[in-house]
């Protein structure tokens, strides 16, 4: 039981980590939380659904299309929401991204929702759905795929972020946008890239997750809350913190659901957010910031 719960916690946690990465990426470079990040995730999932189920493309092709589509949507978010409001206060930006999130959700529901029996669509398994024994516990191959996929994307992202020119420009912009601008970095392009990259990792996560659960236009918000929990747990703005936080949230949720009450699986993310923000706002690893005057 314990091992099973941990295993499933780790595989969902890997997805949360992937969604959290995008959230943190955008937060670090712009100082804003993208409340529509969950919907970018959801939309990516539906793009893959269209390719895989409706158009009959192979799973991996669908994944690639979804990642590209997610990138485009992230860029759209940058252009329509972030760029025009770049000087606006944080409150305005939150309201705008919340508005944008419902706009996308409505569009997704228009195309893929409101079917008989609710808004949920099933995403068939990409690999053999029967569980196989691994180290004494039964796991679904899709869970292994999720774990492998998540690992792959996190590694690719880390290399991208730390080693490539774009990644370094993102880091420089996040540190100090003015200095980056003065040293010749085209900051606006970096922002676009940041929003796009964040959304494309989220899309990939959605494609990995979809076969394990059902897909619905409302799924984005659930993932967003998990990603929030992961980021605040890891300290808002810390990339490694968000990844570790993602796994922790997955595991806590799974254990709370398994040992205490199944309903707790849903609610533990909210509890984590509230408890961490109230008692340790800097997260588990973060340091307290200066108070701005």
């Amino acid at each position: 039981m314990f091992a099973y719960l941990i295993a499933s916690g780790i595989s969902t946690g890997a997805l949360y980590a992937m969604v959290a990465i995008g959230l943190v990426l955008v937060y670090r470079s712009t100082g804003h939380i993208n409340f529509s990040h969950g919907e970018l995730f959801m939309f990516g999932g539906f793009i893959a659904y269209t390719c895989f189920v409706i158009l009959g493309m192979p799973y991996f092709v669908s994944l690639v299309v979804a990642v590209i589509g997610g990138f485009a949507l992230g860029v759209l978010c940058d252009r329509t929401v972030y760029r025009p409001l770049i000087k606006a206060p944080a409150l305005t930006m939150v309201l705008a991204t919340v508005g944008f999130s419902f706009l996308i959700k409505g569009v997704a529901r228009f195309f893929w929702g409101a079917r008989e029996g609710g808004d949920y669509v099933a995403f068939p398994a990409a690999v053999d759905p029967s569980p196989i024994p691994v180290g004494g516990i039964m796991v679904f191959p899709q869970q292994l795929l999720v774990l492998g996929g998540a690992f792959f994307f996190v590694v690719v992202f880390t290399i991208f972020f730390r080693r490539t020119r774009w990644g370094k420009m993102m880091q420089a912009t996040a540190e100090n946008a003015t200095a980056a601008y003065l040293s010749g970095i085209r900051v606006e392009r970096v922002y676009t890239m940041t929003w796009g990259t964040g959304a494309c990792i989220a899309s990939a996560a959605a494609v990995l997750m979809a076969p394990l659960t059902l897909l619905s236009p409302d799924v984005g918000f659930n993932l967003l809350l998990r990603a929030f929990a992961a980021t605040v747990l890891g300290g808002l703005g810390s990339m490694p913190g968000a990844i570790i936080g993602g796994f922790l949230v997955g595991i806590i949720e799974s254990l709370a659901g398994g040992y205490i009450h199944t309903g707790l699986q849903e609610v533990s993310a909210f509890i984590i957010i509230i408890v961490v923000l109230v008692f340790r706002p800097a997260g588990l690893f973060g340091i307290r910031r200066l108070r701005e005057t």
Partner: protein
Amino acid sequence: MLRLFSRRNVMAAGVVFFALLPFFANPYVLFIGNLALMYILLSVGLNMLLGYAGQLAFAHAALFGVGAYTTGLLKLELGLHYGLALVAGVGLATVTGLAVALPALRLRGLYLALATVAFAQATLWVFTHWNSVTYGGAGFRVPPLDFEPFTSRPDIGVYVLTFVIVLVSVPLGWNMLRSRVGRAWVAIRESEVAAESLGIDITRYKSIAYVVSAMYAGAAGGLFAGMLGIVTPESFDLFQVIVHFCMVIVGGLGSLWGGVLGAVGLVGLQEVLRAFRHLQEIAFGGLILFTVLVIPGGAVSLLKRYVPGWKEPLRRTEHDE
């Protein structure tokens, strides 16, 4: 000519319209009117917290729900008089608002937004999962109200009650905003440090904002339970927050009358789209985005610019008193 549409005239016309509505409207139109009045309460409360005090809190729909559940359940389980149940609903919503405020006072900006989103979802979870009390996801029916000997029609009874509450509580809120309380809220919104340096106890005034806005939300919730006759969790989900936000933003953040206009204006839209969830989401999400991008001050900022007599305190000029 435009002077005819000054705030005072428009509001007077609105009061007359809502006062006469029960005499000529059919039950459906009366229900819409009642919804509009209820949304006025919600928008006034939300505007105080979000628009004036600048606290980015998403807990409003949850408090609205607490008001509705408390009122409805007390009526259903204890057979309490509706008026008493309503008062209890306001009371519990206020206490919950204070319970949100105490930890929320330590947070600001994005952290506050995140914590209150989580709180709103947790409350919704309680509504959905605490089956033994809340009747779970399907909700419950509120027993029919009785307004004898005033009227034999419960819908008219609730309508008139809502109308009277709006007529009393909106001016009270307006007075509060025109006083040192309203100025303290705006000061906190603009700069906490500057507010403190002028002797404003920001903890105290933020708490007041939470409590007052929770009272409005609780009253709206209790009335909602009464007029709809059924209480289900989905009336208080995140989409409801969006509807409330949309009304306040489209009407004008930080303008009490703007919020009132937004509430009345958008009730119709919501009603027309009621059967189409996706169109509601597109419309309300899109309207928020559009307003924030194109007319940041909301509709009332246009009125202020083009129609004489719309200036307000905390934006007031000499000629407007």
